[in-house]
């Protein structure tokens, strides 16, 4: 039954969430900061308002009584979470669509070294930090994983402002960020299914089989499949077939036990290589950027107030944890990527510039934290602490990186 109060209340929340997300996103964009931060803050503000001011209040205007729904509950309703999770699928699908295998093949060796160093060091430092603060092994692995993937948007804008985007350093950072995203997604799939050492081997085999079957064979037959979609001469039928492929890939990846989001990413890569993708890429972005992805970021922000609450007694530990993780994320990238850059023949200063350029974290860190929570790997107060830390990590690294990049390029002629 579609005409339920619950259904329309969720629609009301989505409308409010979209407006808040876009307005705050725009304000952050005007401040030369990532719009995503504004959208997450929209979620924090909305859920805060819903809990402390508006929930279940009755407002009487003239003779009309307006009852506001319990927004706190609605944020956690299965309908709202469904939209947010579809947002993750779209985000990874679009990332896959924009990833060019031919460009990856041309990427310099330096980017690969930088990516490997930039994954290993933060992963290990994050893991050790978790263990040090008494988190379990699997929780510590997730903490490490959150620190692996670079979001290159902030760096690109700063390098453009400094007019150094066309240097070896700029190219290495861009290539490295794409590689570490891919490694991060594969590691995430790995962690989602892991339970023991035997599981690790089995998951590794399943990921390999999935890639061979769905990417390699998919690349061989995708042209035929898409040409069938093209022959259905109905409005946007080609887009429908593309979305069906996205959903089917996510479904089969989930059924194979390696997380649906890797299916979305593989589907994106697969379709992105085909010449027909030029026809649908803008439509997919319109649906993703315009609807589902902002809802995901609002959902991430809203989870801060709504999950298991916050224990004042653990305040000191949480602050210590946040400071430790943010520091490790910065040190991990500078040392790991810097070493990779040195191995590829760059000097110390260039290695530092590359390391600093790889510091920002954003969408993949949030996806990893959210996915670990929805898979039950992180629960209760631990989930809350790690999500809070991830949000602060994304904000701090995004704000700090431009200053650090400018400082390292200060003496450039």
């Amino acid at each position, binding site marked *: 039954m579609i005409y339920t109060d619950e259904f329309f209340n969720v629609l009301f929340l989505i409308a409010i969430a979209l407006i808040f997300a876009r307005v705050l*996103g725009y304000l952050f964009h005007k401040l030369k900061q990532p719009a995503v931060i504004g959208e997450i803050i929209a979620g924090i503000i909305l859920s805060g308002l819903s809990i402390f001011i508006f929930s279940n209040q009755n407002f009487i205007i003239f003779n009309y009584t307006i009852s506001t729904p319990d927004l706190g509950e609605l944020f956690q309703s299965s309908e709202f979470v469904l939209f947010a999770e579809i947002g993750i699928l779209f985000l990874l699908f679009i990332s896959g669509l924009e990833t060019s295998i031919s460009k990856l093949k041309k990427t310099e060796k330096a980017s690969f070294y930088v990516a490997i160093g930039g994954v290993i060091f933060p992963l290990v430092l994050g893991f050790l930090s978790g263990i040090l603060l008494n988190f379990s092994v699997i929780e510590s692995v997730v903490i490490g994983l959150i620190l692996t993937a670079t979001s290159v948007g902030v760096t690109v804008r700063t390098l*453009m402002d400094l007019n150094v985007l066309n240097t070896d350093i700029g190219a290495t950072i861009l290539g490295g960020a794409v590689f570490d995203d891919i490694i991060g997604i594969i590691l995430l799939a790995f962690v989602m299914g892991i339970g023991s050492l035997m599981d690790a081997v089995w998951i590794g085999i399943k990921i390999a089989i999935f890639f061979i079957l769905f990417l390699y064979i998919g690349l061989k037959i995708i042209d035929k499949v898409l040409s069938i979609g093209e022959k259905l001469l109905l409005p946007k039928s080609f887009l429908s077939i593309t979305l069906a492929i996205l959903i089917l890939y996510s479904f089969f990846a989930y059924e194979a036990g390696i997380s649906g989001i890797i299916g979305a990413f593989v589907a994106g890569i697969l379709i992105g290589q085909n010449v027909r993708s030029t026809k649908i890429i803008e439509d997919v972005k319109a649906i993703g950027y315009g609807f589902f992805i902002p809802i995901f970021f609002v959902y991430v922000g809203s989870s801060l107030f709504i999950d298991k609450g916050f224990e004042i007694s653990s305040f000191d530990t949480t602050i210590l944890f946040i400071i430790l993780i943010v520091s490790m994320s910065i040190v991990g990238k500078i040392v790991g990527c810097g070493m990779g850059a040195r191995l590829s023949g760059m000097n110390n200063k260039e290695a530092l510039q590359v390391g600093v350029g790889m510091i920002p974290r954003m969408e993949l860190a949030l996806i990893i934290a959210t996915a670990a929570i929805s898979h039950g790997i992180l629960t209760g107060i631990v989930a809350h602490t790690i999500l809070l830390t991830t949000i602060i990590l994304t904000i701090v690294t995004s704000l700090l990186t431009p200053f650090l990049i400018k400082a390292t390029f200060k003496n450039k002629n």
Partner: protein
Amino acid sequence: MVKQNKLIKEFYELKVSQLMDKRVWDLPLIEEKEDIHHVLSILGARNHIWVVKDMDRKELVGVITEHDVLSILAPKHFPSYVFGMPDIRSIQHGTANTAGDVMANKIIMCDPDEKIIDALMRMVKFKLRRLPVVKDKIIVGELTLHQLIRKYYSATQYHPILEDEEG
């Protein structure tokens, strides 16, 4: 009307090779590694350039249109809401230096043995006014909407469609 109907059906059934411009030497071609300024000099007069690996073999690897140049010529505003590989190509920032940097490498093309109706449908679907004609990855000609309109119109005026080729 019946005659017109018969004519258009015959027109659809023709092969691309029968109507395409075969003068490859006259097509706007450029090598992948050619400097961006050479690209700009050609596009000052033409709407598009076909990019080939090298001029001897003429293996088609990309296409550059006026629109591609617009995006690298205009000041680069990097969107704050973007995921995946960012497009950083810009003349201002020195990240678009060769034809290979600017070209679109996903090319919608047609085969010389295809029917005209299929080529037309592809032009409609992808909103294109021209298609390269490619055989074994080598560009062997070009099919433009201009040519097709001209050929069809002249056929309606009782000139043979294949007059140019036969003549």
